[in-house]
């Protein structure tokens, strides 16, 4: 039987990918930021997940204003790194797991989630930067990936509560999958950032750290944070943190934090990262 063995959350700032792609991670600007991922890279090498369910958002790459799915699950065989305007990131193709993806999609629809199934799409920094952070720069990614793209660009995104509940439904789906698989779920995006307007550059380290605390201590508080609070407190793009709640919802009632990292800034953004393990 497939098991969700861990949850990982991290920011997915494009500059993090660029720093890795250009060999600049040891520069003073970047050193401390990347140091916080070293623990996880060693841990992932030991964990060897078979599949990562990777919750991210498309940044006007695969989806434009003509097609806006709230929850799109990638059911394809493979996904290419997208050209977001500076050429595709030089990373391996992402290998999907259509068997597991379709299983999750079907199960979540029976569970009354209104999924969109997508089989052909390119994936942008939202998906590839977390892979680079956790796995470094291998020739092939060490596991398969089920992309789960969440609309957080056009308002309204799904509520935190809906995201959390989807995570719970994904956990039920994985638990009913007959193959013996080590599955992780990652939530990406955030933390504080605002990429637009005169208020750009907003960072709220206190709020972010309380969010990190309560992923462990009080996730039920987090699922009820209204959108407006993310925007007021953490900047307009802080809304991406609702995606972390899908990850958290999939881990069950209690979790233990194995590793935690918070660094300001990466470009315009507060980088947050946490590794969680379900307990009991």
């Amino acid at each position, binding site marked *: 039987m497939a098991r969700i063995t861990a949850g990982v959350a991290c920011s997915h700032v494009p500059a993090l990918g660029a720093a890795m792609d250009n060999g600049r991670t040891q520069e003073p600007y970047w050193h401390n930021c990347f140091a916080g991922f070293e623990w996880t890279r060693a841990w992932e090498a030991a964990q060897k997940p078979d599949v990562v369910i990777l919750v991210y958002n498309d940044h006007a790459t695969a989806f434009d204003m003509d097609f806006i799915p709230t929850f799109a699950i990638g059911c394809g065989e493979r996904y290419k790194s997208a050209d977001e305007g500076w050429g595709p990131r030089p990373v391996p193709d992402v290998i999907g797991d259509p068997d597991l993806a379709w299983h999750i999609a079907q199960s979540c629809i029976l569970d009354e989630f209104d999924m969109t199934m997508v089989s052909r799409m390119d994936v942008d920094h939202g998906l590839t930067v977390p892979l680079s952070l956790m796995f470094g720069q291998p020739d092939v990614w060490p596991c398969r990936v089920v992309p789960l793209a969440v609309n957080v660009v*056009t308002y309204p995104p799904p509520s935190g509560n809906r995201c959390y509940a989807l995570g719970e439904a994904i956990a039920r789906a994985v638990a009913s999958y007959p193959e013996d698989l080590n599955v992780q779920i990652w939530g990406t995006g955030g933390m504080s950032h605002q990429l637009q307007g005169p208020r750009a550059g907003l960072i709220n380290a206190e709020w972010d750290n309380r969010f990190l605390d309560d992923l462990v201590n009080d996730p039920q508080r987090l699922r009820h944070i209204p959108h407006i609070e993310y925007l007021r407190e953490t900047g307009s793009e802080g809304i991406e943190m609702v995606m972390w709640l899908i990850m958290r919802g999939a881990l069950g009632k209690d979790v233990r934090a194995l590793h935690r990292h918070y660094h300001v800034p990466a470009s315009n953004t507060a980088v947050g990262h946490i590794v969680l393990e379900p307990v009991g």
Partner: protein
Amino acid sequence: MSGPTDIQQYLAELDDIPGTRVFTTARARKGYWLNQFCMSLMKPENRDRFKAGERAYLDEWPMTEAQKQAVLDRDYNAALDEGGNIYFLAKIFSTDEISFLQAVGTMTGMRAEDYQAMMIAGGRSPVGQRSKKEPY
């Protein structure tokens, strides 16, 4: 859902944040062709054509004059006002080979060095920046 379940009340709250244009569907509709133009820059051949003649390339799109001018001026605040979204607009500054940090800083009215220094020092504080109606 926590917060309002009435969409008008929900949208009204989003308008209460200083220095921020939330990408509501009203903005999305206004900016449709501006954003579609931006998407076209995901193809290298289109980036080359745009660079070779920005005005001519823009004139191929049913954009408003204000939208075209905002692009030509790289005035990203104006582009947001015209319905642009930052993830679409990113295709322009990527074409310019400018980073998110550089491009986003231009919207704040700060000098690039000052914006970068503010970020390194921990970023902009939310204090007083949370609400237009009653700043806190």
